[in-house]
């Protein structure tokens, strides 16, 4: 609470405020940055839609293995659940349980990445490379950058786990569970869009 000489004065809020002001500032920044990320993926999805039939004589959308990618999509979605549980545990100050859920989230993320590597190697085997066609270029760029975002998320989760083990997970650090959770959910949501537009619709 901040007070002024002429009485009690509350800092005015343009945004929903929870707790400490630095927290609010960090969350605002994270939302804004995710807005930017949405445009990044939007531009790549647009490129893919433009080139979905530009197969240049190589394989097209028939190459996708829908059951396999459905399974790995399910894994990624479940990681959002574990992330929520981790966030909740840390809000209750239950560091031990929070760590377990963080580890679970990171492992699910790694499983998804492993699935993507397997999928890519299968596709290359079947003749779809980045240099095969505009379809291939835009497919690998879109899903590859998404995979890199998941990998970045796993790196942040690993750091959170390490900080928590050393008892340094406090609001003094710029990186905290709530922000990483926001990022992680965003990356998940982007995958839902990619999975729908690229794999399922095949328009």
């Amino acid at each position, binding site marked *: 609470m901040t007070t002024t000489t002429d009485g009690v004065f509350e800092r005015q809020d343009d945004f929903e405020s929870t707790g400490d002001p630095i927290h609010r500032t960090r969350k605002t920044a994270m939302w804004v940055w995710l807005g930017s990320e949405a445009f990044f993926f939007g531009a790549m999805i647009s490129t893919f839609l433009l080139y979905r039939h530009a197969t240049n004589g190589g394989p097209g959308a028939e190459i996708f293995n829908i059951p396999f990618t459905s399974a790995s999509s399910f894994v990624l979605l479940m990681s959002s659940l574990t992330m929520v549980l981790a966030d909740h545990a840390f809000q209750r100050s239950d560091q031990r349980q929070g760590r377990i859920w963080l580890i679970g989230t990171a492992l699910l993320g790694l499983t998804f990445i492993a699935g993507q590597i397997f999928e890519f190697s299968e596709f290359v085997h079947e003749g779809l490379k980045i240099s095969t066609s505009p379809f291939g270029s835009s497919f690998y*760029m879109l899903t590859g950058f998404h995979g890199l975002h998941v990998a970045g998320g796993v790196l942040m989760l690993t750091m959170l786990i390490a900080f928590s083990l050393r008892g340094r997970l406090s609001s003094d650090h710029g990186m905290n569970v709530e922000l990483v959770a926001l990022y992680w959910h965003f990356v998940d949501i982007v995958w839902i869009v990619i999975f729908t537009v690229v794999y399922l619709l095949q328009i």
Partner: protein
Amino acid sequence: MTMTASNEDLGYTPSTKGLWSWITTIDHKRIGILYAVSSLVFFIVGGLEALLIRTQLATPNGTVLSADAYNQLFTMHGLTMVFAVVMPIAAAFQNYFVPLMVGARDVAFPRLNAFAYWLFLMSVILLTSSFFLGGSPDGAWTGYAPLSTEIQEYVRMDYYSIGAQLLGIASLASSVNFVATIFTMRAPGMTLMRVPVFVCMTVVTSFLLIFSLPVIGVGLWQIFFDRNFGALFYEAQAAGDPLLWQHLFWIFGHPEVYVLILPAMGIVSEILPVFSRKPLFGYSFVVFSGIAIGFLGFGVWAHHMFTAGMGPVAEAGFGLATMLIAIPTGVKIFNWIGTMWGGRITFATPMLFSIGFIAMFVIGGLSGVTHAIIPADTQQHDSYYVVAHFHYVLFGGAVFGYVAAAYYWFPKWTGKMLSETIGKWHFWLMFAGFNLTFAPQHILGLDGMPRRTYRYGEGMGWDVWNMMSTIGSYLIAISFLFFIWNVIVSYRKGKVAGNDPWDGRTLEWTTTSPPPVHNFDQIPVVHHLDDFWYRKYGVDEEGRSVKLPPELVPPPDVVVEEHGIHMPSPSFYPIVSAIGIAILGAGLVFISSGPIGIAILAVGAVIALWGLVGWAAEPVTRGGH
């Protein structure tokens, strides 16, 4: 507990001497100064590039430059001026003054702020080093595919794709920072409709960058993948579509031109009221027209592509949207004129440059509207008419605005006034030189002289106009020598400024010149737009506002902070991260050259990871508590 802050209250005593203190600084004011100095240095680089271009074109069949050198120079001139001069000078003023104007102690994320600066600097160094290491980008700042993707023997356009990419990341970091600062860290009572217009334009600019940079980011990666990994995004023979690049580029490129001009418009909206001694005419109109320009700026990109063959419906739509932008822009111009109307105007140097801004921007704006008329644009496309147009808005507009800001805010930066005499020489030389350089280019363009060609034949009737233009460009260069001279002389023995030399209206004038590390001993509470002015002025019996004697000026209401002032500690992780990412970028530039590229990339990745992990693990404040 009330306290007057001294350094002991800050939890640490920041060293302000020596190179190390600059390298590790996270003070928004010092970062602002770093941006300003870098911008001035690169302005000299970009200016020399321009002088070489103009020297080559002074006479028909110029022999100063080869076609190859010319291509590199005009490309680098564009990239330097946009990314290394105008954007950072805007960032300099935003960094220094946004926290001061909103009554904050620093930006939201001081280390991110330092990172953005260092990454900007390293990226520009990477881009400029291309002159010596493999050749500079030579496909224009627009980098149109397939020109940018097909010639893969040289790394030139790799410098372009990676350099611009990294600069984008730097701008993105600083934009997110400004939005968070302005939305969540304003002084109590400063509602969004009480912020200075400059702050408001910073928000609009930041959002433009936040939503446009990722789009060009995708395009730049596509060029990079086409060049280095055999991707086929822009390979027409494989049904890739080079037109996609034009769309991605201009979805960024058009908002980008507003990114360059809107902060200058904000600055002019600050300066005109001070030197007209009147409030800004129609504050809310100026604010909302700025926001309208921001929104419309995303809907007009294809007016750069009227000759690309998009079809009449798309062309008509984009033509109309482009004309629509003239409305909020016109609103601003009339508000500025309305601010001056009936005011007690003093023609100090900042005011002269601001008025110059308005006049030159009107000319540039009007020639811009002629581009919205599609048949006319088809004639003007790729001619010197376009060069004249965008120099009138970007030099006559933006640069005049930023120079006005330099004269206006230099006293706050240094505590010394810039010399008015030299300032007036600077203004009139620059004004004359600018018009002499770019006005003839309208005629050259309408007469058919194409841009981006390194020479022209005799007997085209272009000789006189080109010679005028070249003489003008040297006049501009001389005018900036006056500016540099002014800065050096005034910094050494200029008139002492005091806190409030111009009788200002905004919060930065309430603190000392230069401000202390923590900006304000006590955070003020704001009750009005132009709160400072309302405290300094009372109303006499006839309703006229009169200046109160200093002893009668009431002190501001202030926030009482219970825990004292905690300023964040210096950190060297931002610069480590930035150097790492820039080396990583250099590795990407040379990735096709085999193991050497991969080795550089690996070294960069390790350094970047060290910097980022160390940064995340480091507490915001050390010591103190």
